C-alpha cells in the first residue's frame, strides 16, 4: 500500500516533495502529481471542488492500493500557531454532516476537529468555530476518497498557519516554520500506512497461488470459484503449503468433458476440507 499525500497548494507540498525525493510525473492545469519511492504527492488546487476532482482523477489512475492523507495549512483561533494537528472529525459546512477518520494508532500530534468552508475564514469566523480548525478542502477530500477506499485509509494532518483569514501567506515567512516538522509528519504518515497495510493483510491468507494452479486445469463458474475460495481459506488454516499443493496436484491435468470436470471439482473440495 502506498501513501499519497494530498495538498491544495504547491507551496505546501514543496518541502515534502524535496524530503521524499518525488518527481513530477503529471501536470494538468492546477493538478500536479509527483511520484517517489516511499510516497506520492498530489496537488489539487484550492477549494472543495478542486480537491474532489483531483481525488476522482487519482483513483482513476491505477488500481494500486492507496492510503490518502490530506496535509496542509489551516486556520485556528484557540490552537497553538505553527503546530501540526491530527484531525479526528471533519465537518462539512455545506451539508452539516461529518466524516470521522479512523485513527488506529496513537499519534504524536494532538487531535483536533476541522471545519471545511467555501471561503477563507476571517478572525471572527475562526473564533466562532474554535477550538475546531478551518480549511477549504478537508471535507471534500474525505467524501471523495470515501467513494474509492475504506475509511481507515483516509487521514488528515493540518498545520495552523494563522488566525486572521490567510493573510500570513503573502509574507512567505511561514515557509521555514512549516517545514520544521516535515520529518515527523512524513514519519507518522509512512509508519501508519505500513501498519495499516499489515492490519489489512493479516486477515487474508494468500490463496492466489492455489487458485491459479486449479484454474489452469479446470474452467470454473463464478459459484464454483466462490466454493473453491471458501474451501481454500478453510484448508489453508489446517494444511501446510506442500500438503495443499499435493491435494491440488491430484486434480487431473486434462479433463475430457463437463461431467468429468464437475466430478473432479467435487472431489477436490472434499479433499481440501478433509483435515
Amino acid at each position: 500500500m502506498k501513501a499519497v499525500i494530498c495538498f491544495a497548494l504547491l507551496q505546501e507540498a514543496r518541502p515534502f516533495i524535496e524530503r521524499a525525493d518525488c518527481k513530477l510525473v503529471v501536470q494538468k492545469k492546477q493538478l500536479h502529481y509527483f511520484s517517489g519511492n516511499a510516497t506520492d504527492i498530489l496537488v489539487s488546487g484550492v477549494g472543495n471542488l478542486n480537491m474532489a476532482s483531483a481525488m476522482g482523477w487519482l483513483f482513476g489512475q491505477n488500481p494500486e492500493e492507496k492510503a490518502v492523507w490530506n496535509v496542509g495549512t489551516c486556520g485556528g483561533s484557540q490552537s497553538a500557531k505553527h503546530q501540526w494537528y491530527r484531525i479526528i472529525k471533519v465537518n462539512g459546512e455545506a451539508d452539516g454532516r461529518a466524516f470521522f477518520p479512523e485513527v488506529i494508532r496513537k499519534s504524536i500530534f494532538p487531535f483536533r476537529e476541522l471545519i471545511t468552508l467555501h471561503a477563507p475564514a476571517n478572525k471572527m469566523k475562526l473564533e466562532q468555530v474554535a477550538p475546531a480548525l478551518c480549511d477549504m478542502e478537508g471535507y471534500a477530500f474525505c467524501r471523495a476518497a470515501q467513494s474509492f477506499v475504506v475509511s481507515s485509509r483516509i487521514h488528515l494532518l493540518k498545520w495552523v498557519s494563522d488566525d486572521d483569514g490567510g493573510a500570513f501567506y503573502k509574507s512567505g515567512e511561514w515557509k521555514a516554520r512549516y517545514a520544521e516538522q516535515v520529518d515527523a509528519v512524513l514519519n507518522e504518515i509512512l509508519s501508519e500506512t505500513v501498519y495499516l497495510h499489515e492490519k489489512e493483510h493479516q486477515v487474508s491468507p494468500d490463496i492466489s497461488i492455489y487458485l491459479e494452479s486449479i484454474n489452469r486445469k479446470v474452467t470454473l463458474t463464478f459459484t464454483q470459484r466462490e466454493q473453491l475460495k471458501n474451501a481454500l481459506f478453510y484448508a489453508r488454516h489446517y494444511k501446510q503449503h506442500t500438503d495443499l499443493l499435493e491435494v491440488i496436484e491430484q486434480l487431473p491435468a486434462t479433463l475430457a468433458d463437463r461431467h468429468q470436470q464437475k466430478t473432479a471439482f467435487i472431489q477436490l473440495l472434499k479433499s481440501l476440507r478433509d483435515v
Partner: protein
Amino acid sequence: MFKQVVYVEEEIQDHPNTQRVLSFFKEAVIVSIRHYKDVFNQSGADWRVQKSAQKLILAKRSDQYYYKGSDITPSFGYRHFYYNTLALNCVYDCSYCYLQGMFTSAHMVLFVNTNDFITATRQLIQQVNEPVYMALSYDTDLLAIEAWYPYCAEWIAFSKTEPLLTIEIRTKSGNIQSLLKQEPHPGVVLAWTLSPDEIIMQHEPLTPSLMVRIRALRKVLDKGWRVRVCLDPVLAVPGWKAYYSGMIRTLATEIQLGQLDSFSVGVFRMNRQFLKNMQGSRSDSPLLFDRYVLENDVYSYTDDLQKEMYGFIRAELETYCQDLKITFT
C-alpha cells in the same frame, strides 16, 4: 480498546452516567457527535481494522428498549422472552461472533440512559402481567465492562423489585467483584459461556481462560447465585470431541454439576447474510468456511453432525451427573 478517543453524543454530554464512564477514559479526547450512527454507520469501514483500534461511543437510545427473542436463541420455556441492547459490540474478539456480520462497525456503543430501558421493561411487565425473561447481554458482554458502568448491578437491583422478571446476564468474563458484593436473587441467571482452552486460544481472543471462567462461576455459585453454563457455540473443529470431553471433565472436577441451574447447549449456527458478511471481512478464520448447510436462512452443521454433537455433549455431561437440566438449541 483505543482509549485516546471517545465519541459522545451532544445530547448526553452532561449526563451523570456519561461522566461516570468518561472517568475511566481520563486521557481521551472527547469528540462530540450528533448521533451515534454518524460514527457507527459510517460507510466504508473495515471491520477488522476498526476492531484493532476499537473506540467507545456513548449514546442515548431513544426507542427499541427491548426486542422479542430470536428464533435461533433458546427461550428457556418463557412465553415472554426478550432481550435488550444496553450496548452494541463487545470488548472480546471471538472469531465466530455474529456481531461481525450484523454491524458494519466494530466500535462499541454504550447507551447511558439506562433508566429509560428500565422504565420500558417495567411497563412491559405490567402490560403482559406474566413472567418475563430479559436477556441483557446478547450483543455484548456487560460483565466484562462492569467497571466502566455498573449495568449488571443496576439491573440486578431492578430485578429485585419485579417478581415477574427474570434477567439473564451472559458472559465469558472473570470480573465478578460486583456480583460478590450483592445478595443473590432468584430472578437473576448468571450464564457463563464455556469453551475448551484449545478453542479459546484459537477462536476467542482477549477472553479469559477456561479455568478463570470456571473459578468465577464457582465463586458466585458458592455465594448462592443461579448459574447456567452455556456450551454455545459448540464447534466441530478437528479434534472437537477430545476438546469438549476435556473441558467437561475439568468443569466436573471443579464443581458439582448438579449445583448448576441448567445447561444451554447450541452448535454453531449463523444467519445467512451475517455469515456472508463475515466471510468478506475475515478470511483468517477457518470456522467461517466450514461445510455448513442452509436451512431457513440459517447456516449450521448437517443434521447428522448436529445430532452427533448434541448426543456427545449430553453423554459427556451425564457421565458426571444424571439429573441435569439441559436445553438444546
